């Protein structure tokens, strides 16, 4: 087993054992953190692996959240089953990401900072549309969204939520790792490193990026659906600027080029925030912002990304096999 898998296993074991040392009410908090972590992973895949910095990634999270809410509240002609909600919460952001991605990347396409600024402007657009849509509840959003129903049982037991979401998070990371190691994933890495070369080698880089963007949007949408069914309501703040900014902080602090590091970034920032926001209050966002800036300047690989990279190097040195 590689050093990297050992680290991943240890982290998983840690979170499996964690409930033993935690009061029950904290379990549901962690279930929410895991949900955010799934969102963070979708962003880290796009940013770290494909090299596309999306400044408005909450759009897809929010679309998933609203889709789930609309379906499970019975606002559509479809039966209000959770499974239909989840399917739509993955499909709708996926389709939107596919359409927007095709628009962004076709032929010469948007790159680097242009992509970032356009995605930011889009987050603005989507947030405004959510606010001004009366069907979606406007400023207040959709309220009383029910929990996920599995085989007729509403899932609200904290322990079940904890392990359910931990499992989904682990599964998402695993799935994306498989994708990253596949031929498609290697081509994406090639696009990140040198798009021109990948293109001259005959690869349709635009199509690769569109599919990567779509996949990332689908996972973000799934996270959004899981979020609202725990949290109970979907509001315009889920789709716009501020959640996008927060997700960037998680991923940058955790580590953009390592999915597990990004997930840990989300979990840690949310946990520390919940612990400190009582004591620090409104000072907390300033602290988070300062930490974020510091990591951008001094730790571009992120806290966990840096730590894991070093552990792996140390492992390689001490273990010649």
């Amino acid at each position, binding site marked *: 087993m590689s050093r990297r898998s050992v680290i991943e296993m240890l982290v998983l074991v840690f979170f499996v054992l964690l409930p033993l040392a935690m009061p029950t009410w904290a379990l549901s908090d962690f279930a929410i953190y895991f949900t955010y972590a799934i969102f963070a992973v979708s962003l880290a895949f796009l940013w770290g692996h494909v090299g596309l910095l999306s400044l408005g990634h909450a759009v897809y999270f929010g679309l998933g959240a609203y889709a789930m809410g609309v379906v499970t509240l019975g606002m559509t002609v479809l039966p209000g089953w959770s499974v239909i909600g989840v399917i739509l919460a993955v499909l709708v952001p996926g389709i939107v990401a596919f359409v927007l991605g095709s628009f962004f990347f076709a032929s010469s396409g948007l790159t*680097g900072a242009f992509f970032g*600024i356009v995605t930011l402007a889009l987050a603005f657009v989507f947030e405004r549309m959510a606010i001004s849509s009366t069907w979606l509840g406007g400023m207040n959003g959709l309220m009383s969204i029910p929990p996920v129903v599995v085989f007729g049982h509403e899932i609200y037991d904290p322990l079940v939520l904890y392990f359910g979401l931990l499992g989904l998070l682990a599964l998402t990371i695993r799935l994306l790792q498989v994708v990253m190691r596949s031929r498609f994933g290697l081509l994406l890495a090639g696009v990140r490193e040198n798009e021109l070369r990948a293109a001259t080698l005959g690869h349709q880089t635009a199509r690769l990026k569109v599919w990567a963007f779509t996949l990332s949007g689908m996972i973000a949408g799934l996270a959004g659906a899981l979020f609202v069914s725990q949290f109970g309501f979907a509001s315009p703040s889920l789709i716009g600027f501020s959640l996008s900014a927060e997700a960037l902080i998680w991923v940058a602090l955790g580590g953009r080029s390592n999915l597990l590091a990004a997930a840990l970034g989300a979990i840690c920032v949310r946990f520390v925030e919940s612990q400190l926001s009582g004591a620090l209050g409104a*000072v907390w966002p*300033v602290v*988070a912002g300062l930490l974020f800036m510091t990591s951008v*300047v001094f730790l*571009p690989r992120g806290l966990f990304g840096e730590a894991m990279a070093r552990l792996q190097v140390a492992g390689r040195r001490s273990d010649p096999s």
Partner: protein
Amino acid sequence: MDRILIFLLDSSNAILVLMLVSLGLAVIFGLMNVINMAHGEFLVLGAYGVLTLQWAGLPFAACLVIAPMLVALIGLAAEELLIRRTYERLLDTILATWGLSLVLRQGLVLIYGPGSHAVAAPDMGSVPVFGEIYPVYRLVVMALSAAAIAFTFWVFFRTALGLQARAVIANRNMAACLGINTRMLDRLTFAFGAGLAGLAGAVMSPLISVDPNAGLGWLVPGFLSILVAGLGSLSGPIVGAAGVGAVDSLAAAISSPVWAQLTVFVAAIIVIRFFPQGLMALKRREA
């Protein structure tokens, strides 16, 4: 007829201020290759500066002069402490300045509270303009914005400092080989760009609701303006802001301000996507 005149005056007002914002962004990007996501907050700081100085009892005119200078100083500090450490890493300049914007925004919440404040408008009354009564202060805003834009062009094209700045934009290494202190120019440029945003915020402060989150509403149109017209020249942001501002005003007159903004954003995104001159300019810089 009279409504059209008022509409034209109001639109010119909005456009001139947007030009000021875009110009600051473009100057910073052109010289330093830094995407300044904190530019909107610099504008808001200018407005809060006026608010604070007014509380301290200074006359409004003095506030208008001092507030942008304070913002320029904050820009100078930000450049020294943060931004210069991310040069050569374009995407990281976005993140670093994004972090800065979060900190500044929350800092304003801590100091002034999350709510909005109103800056007392200077009582200048109204004058007839082509037969229509129009507030004098709005005319002053236009004049000051136009003057600041003209000043920026004058500095860039008529002074030794501007000549050096243009040389650095064209070829940073060669400029240094001629003895030009590029670090000093970076500092000055960032402070100047921040000061322009601060000035925009200061002159607009009596006309807008001053709240910590007001910056984003300026940042995005500012960026779209410079991208729409293409990077690489000082006239780009002027032309772009005129376009973005005009479409915004027209759409707002037909529908609502919210839909106007959506129209502008979507239109700008489409233009940016399909008109390559802006894209080409950025690609050249990224290479």
